[in-house]
């Protein structure tokens, strides 16, 4: 089934060898971890592909069996990916082990990394590395006595047999930690042990020119005292042994090292932000990357498609080829054909051709005319041949400044192709500004309808906003819908926009549901997301659609820190788990001149709340209002909600239940 290929969307579900599966970002040259000569810090939010990125740089992919020829140049740097068991490692701490904790942590890391280094040897021996003689020597290489004695091994042991021994010691260490009263068998230094192994190899003419670069994932889940030790190794890392770390963006991690007098400067290490620097420096970068990922997966399902070359997507040498305009266009075009979308104008036309939706528009126009005591006929304001203007007229008429007579004339001028005047130009601009809001305004009255603005590859990109996992989930659910509609046999593959929109709504609801599971304050985050969604949705019901399309907000304060301690904890958690995305204040909404930060609700929630996923106009909350949204009881929030209903003159707000499946 096609859907099954898209179902896997977590790095942990993929094999360690990602050759041919990992699509290299186009600007990869600057972000090849294997070219780094010092440790780096890799940051990325949940679902942004952090683990995949690291694993691409590790030996399983480097020495992939699918790479037919591996030369010495290919092993100038060997990446070692290590994800500690962060649940287990929490046990190694001062409260539990007293002063021994440090030695125990070092021993744990030394043993775990040794396992990784010895796994590397296995993979190396199995790989297509050109020099069989080296492999043969390595197979028969005996661990020097000095080293095996460190490990309490008193007999000769081959390097390739050492892994099982080390695994045994790790077991012993685990069990010793159950009752750590006496001393452990031996203690090792984390960094020095690995350096020792590397030295032994080099002394024996193995990996003479190789630098080993260790990537430690989930750094934020280590204890602070562990982080300091690793920071120290990182600071002093140099060829042939470098340490790098990866953690969730916004996570609190220690910058300190173990030596008290030298605090590690933030700038000591390069920080690579996976989203902002690598995957989505521009929206176009993210779009192309997404298109290639989708195309390569579809090819995995049906090899008749020859869109991407799986040998090329993981290869640094081929990035140049993928940078050509023709290639880009071909990709985007292909994925657009799988997930076609309707342009906003086409959606307006759909409104005009759908009896129910059109009636709603006419009803709105009539109501607006009545409010303005105008005797003009409603039919002056809509015309099936001019759907965009018609749909927007339905909201413009409600605006205080709009005079029905003038709008009627404008609409007529607009319809006559030749008429060019400043007012027609301004009218056209109004149409383009209010179109999406006006479309949503009509759809929001019909709980059963899902607006087609949520369908289409490029809209999927907008909704997933640099989150690859969300993108793949949207594709997955779309294919599930396709399969359920029994249209799978249809070639070429194409998912109808209605099915896509249905899938988007499903993903949206699913993500809202998942928020409650994120971190210690998941339920609070879900409540906050829901309340914001409800408010944006309420705003979407404003008849005038002035400043439409709200999915982000700011707070009218110079300093968010002063609002409330719990508020700041929750705001931080919301950023950490990507429920809110933070931006520097750029939106030119004049009502707010003092706040410096803006926060966007994760746009995957847009279909659930029937709001726009585009960051266009923001709502500026007062500190008290945001406090209510984040912290107060449902009763208090209900009061706030009613206040907005009044302020925004929403008449049909009672249609909304505050809770439950009314969105």
């Amino acid at each position, binding site marked *: 089934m096609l859907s099954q290929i898209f179902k896997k969307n977590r790095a942990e579900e993929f094999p360690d060898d990602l050759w041919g599966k990992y699509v290299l970002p186009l600007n990869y040259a600057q972000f090849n971890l294997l070219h780094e000569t010092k440790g780096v810090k890799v940051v990325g939010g949940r679902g942004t592909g952090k683990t995949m990125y690291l694993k691409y740089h590790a030996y399983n992919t480097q020495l992939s069996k699918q790479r037919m020829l591996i030369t010495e140049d290919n092993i100038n740097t060997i990446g070692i990916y290590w994800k500690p*068991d962060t649940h*287990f490692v929490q046990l190694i701490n001062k409260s539990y082990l007293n002063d021994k904790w440090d030695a125990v942590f070092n021993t744990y890391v030394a043993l775990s990394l040794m396992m990784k280094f010895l796994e590397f040897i296995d993979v190396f021996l199995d790989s297509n590395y050109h020099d069989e003689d080296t492999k043969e020597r390595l197979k028969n290489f005996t661990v020097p006595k000095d080293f095996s004695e460190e490990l309490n091994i008193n007999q000769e042991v081959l390097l390739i047999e050492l892994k099982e021994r080390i695994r045994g010691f790790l077991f012993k260490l685990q069990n010793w930690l159950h009752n750590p009263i006496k001393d452990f068998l031996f203690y090792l230094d984390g960094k020095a042990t690995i350096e020792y192994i590397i030295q032994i190899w080099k002394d024996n003419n193995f990996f003479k020119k190789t630098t080993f670069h260790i990537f430690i994932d989930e750094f934020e*889940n280590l204890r602070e005292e562990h982080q300091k030790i690793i920071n120290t190794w990182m600071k002093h890392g140099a060829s042939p042994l470098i340490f790098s770390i990866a953690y969730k963006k916004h996570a609190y991690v220690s910058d300190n090292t173990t030596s008290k007098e030298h605090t590690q400067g933030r700038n000591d290490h390069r920080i690579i932000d996976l989203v902002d620097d690598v995957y989505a420096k521009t929206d176009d970068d993210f779009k192309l990357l997404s298109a290639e990922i989708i195309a390569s997966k579809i090819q995995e399902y049906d090899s008749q498609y020859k869109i991407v070359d799986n040998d090329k997507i993981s290869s640094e040498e081929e990035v140049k080829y993928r940078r050509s305009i023709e290639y880009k266009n071909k990709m985007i075009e292909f994925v657009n054909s799988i997930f076609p979308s309707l342009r906003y104008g086409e959606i307006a036309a759909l409104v005009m051709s759908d009896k129910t939706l059109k009636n709603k528009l006419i009803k709105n126009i009539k109501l607006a005319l009545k409010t303005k005591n105008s005797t003009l006929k409603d039919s002056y304001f809509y015309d099936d041949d001019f759907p965009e203007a018609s749909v927007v007229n339905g909201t413009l008429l409600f605006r205080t400044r709009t005079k029905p007579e003038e709008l009627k004339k404008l609409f007529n001028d607009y319809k006559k192709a030749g008429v060019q005047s400043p007012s027609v130009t301004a009218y056209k601009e109004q149409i383009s500004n209010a179109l999406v809001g006006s479309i949503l305004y009509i759809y929001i009255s019909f709980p059963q309808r899902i607006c087609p603005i949520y369908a289409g590859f490029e809209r999927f990109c907008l909704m997933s906003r640099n989150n690859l996992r969300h993108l793949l989930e949207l594709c997955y659910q779309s294919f599930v819908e396709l399969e359920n509609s029994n249209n799978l046999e249809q070639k070429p593959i194409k998912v109808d926009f209605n099915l896509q929109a249905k899938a988007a709504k499903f993903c949206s609801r*699913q993500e809202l549901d998942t928020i409650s*599971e994120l971190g*210690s304050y998941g339920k609070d985050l879900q409540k906050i997301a829901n309340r914001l969604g409800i408010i944006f949705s309420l705003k979407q019901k404003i008849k005038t659609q002035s400043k439409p399309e709200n999915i982000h907000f700011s707070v009218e304060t110079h300093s968010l820190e002063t609002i409330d301690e719990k508020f700041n904890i929750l705001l931080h958690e919301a950023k950490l788990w990507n429920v809110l995305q933070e931006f520097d204040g750029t939106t030119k909404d004049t009502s707010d001149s003092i706040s410096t930060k803006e926060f966007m609700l994760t746009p995957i929630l847009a279909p659930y709340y029937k709001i726009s996923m585009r960051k266009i106009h923001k709502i500026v909350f007062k500190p008290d209002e945001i406090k209510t949204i984040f912290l107060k009881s449902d009763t208090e929030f209900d009061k706030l909600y009613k206040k907005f209903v009044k302020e925004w003159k929403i008449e049909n707000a009672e249609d909304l239940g505050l809770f439950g499946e009314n969105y």
Partner: protein
Amino acid sequence: MWRFRNIKTYFNHDEVSLEKDTIAYHGDFLLDDRGKYVQSLLNKFVEKKIYLKYDENDFLFLVNENNTENKLSKFDLKNKLLKQNISHSVVIDATTLSFAEILFLLSDLNKIKDVQNIHILYVEPSEYKFLNSSITTYDEFALSDKLQQFPPLPGFTINTELEHVELVAFLGFEKQRLGQIFSSEEVIYDNFIPIIPLPGFSPGWENRTINNHLKFFDPRYRFSNVKYVSANNPFQTLKILEKLAAARKCFRVAPIGTKPNAIGCAVFLVNNENNDETNFGALYDFPVKSKNRSSGVGKVHIYNLFKID
């Protein structure tokens, strides 16, 4: 090794009685109605009451005896507290203690020769707190204010870097507790075995559990099969774990459902504590329990355990 001798269940609260000359370990009485009931019960029958609270961050116990507070290292629990009190018959109040305290008490009492027999008390509520503001369609329950990121339990923490690990989770109402295990993105379990409390404390309660966890019963979470165990039967819990352990050597148990299921898990883990052949760990999230999380007092259970070699 602990074995169950019998389980007594009382429908009439007046009939409940405990042995004389008993020492009881308990937690916070004031959380809900049944806590207060336990307090009155212990006041009536018990010689000596000792309050215990395990601090998962500092690996120590807060002990309160006759209003005297004391801190004890995890390693000192056996010698400095339990051994001092072996002349008494022992009652562990599982209503107010959490999984962690029950686990460590069972583990350390298991190592004290003179203790051969213990009683575990558990009082069911008549209803759990229902959170009205259900955002998604199904019922949400407000039983915990905050969840911790599964701090390790000394003696019962296994390293998943060593081998493939399966997850056995005893489910309750709060889906977040399971969801957190999966969303923390650390370990992908080789197999996920959810265990539903059926029959539940009250008819129909199992549906709450199933509804709230339905999305996890999917191959994406390496789900293969649901198993059932009576909500208030730790003996059955132990049996089901022993059966699972016969076929697999390495799994983590997450007692994130009913307390009687958690008791069964604790007995299983303690019985396998020093087994070199197997590798079983626990995952527990130390929920900060909401005040008045349940209401009313339901059935009362007394589980009697004895030791075999």
